[in-house]
């Protein structure tokens, strides 16, 4: 396939949303004067790209598996792509067609919007108020884990046999389960009331975000407004729910033995994996947030996000060596 970005002029600007703007080559062919304000914009994802000019209004796009359209051909010519290379791109694209059709068909069959039953929270609980002296212990615990997200966290009104923080699970703003995080250092630390296929943090994701960070633990997710599968693997139903978000999914494994299996699950579901090189005292996202802060952690996660299977497996081996000491 042609790397269309390599044909763009050197003078270009990249935006955070992934668009690269440059002086559109199309305007002079469409009755407008030469663009000098970088009004042409292109956005590429894998081999797929789309182009829009905000000066002359010309648009073009290319999707592997489909023929190179007339407009895409013209744009490529204006960018200086050789006509032989354009023809080769067309042939390669058509070779993919049959495979693409099959995948699209399969995805259509598998695409069923997830839903969960509404459930009740445990009785006798109340919201944690940071200024309430009765809740000082919990507020301090959350502060020590750098949980700053305004999420409704609850505690028992009357302390039960084990001191706990209750985290409600929501999906489309309905309560669909909860987990209890016990603070007494006894096992189990968590007891979940989780429906199959549920992923925590779905409602925290904002519509305009272009990526979502998936972690194992709920406090990892709470510290970066991410998602948590609350297990060391990702089930097919959970993967389906994550794909429903229609954005780049970045899985960040815990840097321990359990983390290795979630990497395999991420590869299986074709999600990106990020394994930042953290020191030994940083085992997961929440540890990183405590040590570096939320902004640094998010930047490290995005910088290390990898989609290539070979590279992910290479990083997995590196992590494995680190874990084995």
């Amino acid at each position: 396939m042609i790397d269309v970005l390599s044909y763009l002029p050197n003078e270009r600007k990249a935006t955070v949303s992934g668009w690269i703007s440059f002086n559109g080559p199309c305007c002079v062919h469409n009755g407008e004067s030469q663009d000098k304000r970088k009004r042409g914009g292109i956005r590429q994802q894998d081999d797929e790209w789309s182009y829009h000019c905000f000066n002359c209004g010309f648009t073009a796009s290319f999707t592997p598996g489909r023929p190179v359209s007339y407009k895409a051909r013209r744009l490529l010519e204006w960018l200086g792509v050789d006509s032989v290379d354009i023809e080769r791109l067309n042939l390669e694209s058509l070779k993919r067609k049959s495979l693409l059709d099959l995948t699209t068909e399969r995805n259509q069959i598998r695409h069923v919007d997830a839903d969960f039953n509404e459930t009740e929270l445990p009785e006798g609980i109340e919201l944690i108020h940071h200024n309430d002296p009765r809740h000082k212990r919990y507020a301090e615990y959350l502060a020590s884990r750098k949980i700053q997200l305004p999420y409704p966290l609850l505690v028992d009104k009357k302390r039960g046999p084990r001191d706990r923080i209750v985290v409600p699970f929501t999906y489309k703003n309905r309560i669909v389960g909860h987990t209890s995080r016990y603070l007494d250092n006894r096992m189990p630390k968590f007891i979940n009331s989780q429906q199959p296929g549920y992923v925590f943090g779905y409602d925290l994701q904002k519509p305009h975000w272009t990526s979502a960070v998936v972690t194992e633990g709920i406090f990892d997710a709470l510290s970066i407004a991410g998602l948590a599968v609350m297990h060391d693997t990702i089930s097919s139903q959970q993967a389906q729910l994550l794909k429903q978000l229609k954005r780049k999914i970045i899985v960040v494994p815990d840097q321990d033995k359990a983390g290795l299996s979630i990497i395999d699950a991420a590869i299986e579901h074709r999600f990106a994996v990020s394994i930042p090189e953290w020191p030994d005292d940083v085992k997961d996202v929440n540890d990183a947030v405590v040590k570096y802060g939320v902004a640094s952690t998010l930047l490290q996660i995005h910088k290390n996000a990898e989609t290539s299977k070979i590279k992910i497996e290479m990083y997995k081996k590196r992590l494995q060596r680190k874990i084995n000491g």
Partner: protein
Amino acid sequence: MANIYFGGCSITEGDGFVAGKEDPRIYPNLLVSNAINDSEGGSSNIKIFLKAATAIVDNLANVYIIQWSALHRHWIYPTPDSGIHLSDTKDKHAKWYQERNHDYGNIIQLIQFCRILQDLAFSHNAKLLFINGLVNWSNDIEWMKELVADASSDHERFIENLQNNMELIDWNLWINPWSNMYDTKLDVAEDNLHPGPLTHKHIADQIRDKLIA
């Protein structure tokens, strides 16, 4: 580890908070454990720009978060160790300066600062975000006409110039382009003047969201 640089005026410096720059409740400290906080109370935009540009050229960080201050602020230095803050209208020099330097030029100048920083950051492979700390502007052209209504000049030409220049700014880099931190102030700090902990938290949340998006 990702180094994050924060530039700005008293807001980012943590004025009004007991521990100032070290206070854990100000937005740089809510986002990063070891923030490079290069902000300084009373800074003018030119000072913020020069410090940020130097930091980018020196590759001080991977991410630069720049909070812009009030448009009319300016400093002059009659002697090497003393500066006069020209936004203090009690000072006769300041009054003279304010009368003769309208926000016309200051707005265009700020846009140029943004453009230069955008290009500098891109060429140094660094991320850049802007925060509107105290910039008194709007994307409503009618409102902007009001802002400069006192000045005796060609308004239409200014507005055209402004529109042309504004198109060159990458608005995706802005956290809150059209509402400054005083417009959206949710609370005040201990000095009863500067934005308080809730406002800092709000800004930190918006920056975090921007980093995810």
